[in-house]
């Protein structure tokens, strides 16, 4: 199934634009973000996590990878985590990205819409949003360690931070 990777022990997996992956208890999920949104879901009790690299706010019936749009990526990511766990989960969420290096109106608008759509859908699904690291002009490397739930944000020229 395209768009889904289930990871083995200590695998570091790169999640690219419009893609997502889930892992239980061990893998590190990583994504390089620019204007897109990185969404990490994690269930601390069962140590199951997922990371999506979301590009646009709404699919509006278009095809393409489920991970590309907020309205398809979040349900798909959530469902895949529950499939991997074999049970219902109660994840929490953190988001990062939505930068605008070139200061264009289109990208600024998309970034804002992505953040708003993500927050709205997380709220509807009753998934608490515990942290965000969004905006600015620089890219980010977002990593989710599914053994611990720790999310690290790296920016070129700055010290890494824990989100």
């Amino acid at each position, binding site marked *: 199934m395209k768009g889904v990777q289930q990871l083995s022990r200590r695998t570091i997996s790169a999640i690219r*634009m419009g893609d997502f992956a889930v892992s239980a208890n061990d893998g590190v999920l990583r994504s*390089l973000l620019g204007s897109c949104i990185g969404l990490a879901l994690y269930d601390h009790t069962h140590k199951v996590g997922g990371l999506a690299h979301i590009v646009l706010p709404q699919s509006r019936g*278009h095809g*393409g990878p489920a991970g590309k749009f907020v309205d398809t990526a979040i349900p798909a990511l959530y469902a895949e985590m529950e499939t991997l766990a074999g049970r219902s989960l109660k994840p929490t969420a953190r988001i990062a990205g939505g930068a605008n*290096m*070139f200061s264009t109106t289109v990208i600024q608008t998309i970034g804002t819409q992505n953040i708003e759509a993500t927050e709205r859908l997380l709220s509807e699904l009753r998934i608490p949003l515990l942290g965000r690291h969004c905006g600015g002009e620089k*890219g980010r490397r977002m990593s989710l360690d599914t053994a611990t739930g720790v999310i690290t944000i790296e920016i070129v020229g700055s010290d890494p931070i824990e989100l």
Partner: protein
Amino acid sequence: MKAQRENVLSIEQLDAFRTAFHEGAAEASTALGRWIDKPTRISFDVVEQLPLDEATRVLGSEGEPICFCVAQMTGRLTGQLILAFSDASGLALADLLLDQPRGTAGAWGQMETSAALETANIIACTFLNSLYRNFPADPSATSELLPTPPRFSRDYAASLIEFAVMDQVVATDHVLVAQTEFQIDGDPVDWTLLFIPDAESMMTLREALRERR
């Protein structure tokens, strides 16, 4: 899916654009050679429409920080023109331009950054002038193709590409990326020029290349 198909170039349009891009890259390479007074050559030259997950890999090691000078294109075509290079390549070029022994430049100071920006400006202006001359004429289009003054930065390669293709991504799952690599004979300098039009320019390209056929 009609809209998706309408936002990509046909094989014939891509071939026609490839010819114009190659001309521009060749002229930019010549201008670079004159600027540094050394023989330069194009080691790689490709125009592709790539799926999103492949587009972020065009600069190779996507997780490594790279340096780049980016200029916005203005006029008939709009979007991003990017000159990307490793720290080593950029600093080696600064040594060349500042006429100092190789390895003298060890960090990005004002002089090194200025050398990179001026080089990017020369390449961008030459490339766009050539593209304008070789692009199908449109009687209603009077505006030239010009770059804004370039800006220098360092970031992850994949993040840079994501910023650049974002405007196209709104309309399609495939993005047009034109790429050429310059090498300088005898020096460890390897720079990549990326031409990434925005969604509006994709429409212009399709119309203009339809005129040519």
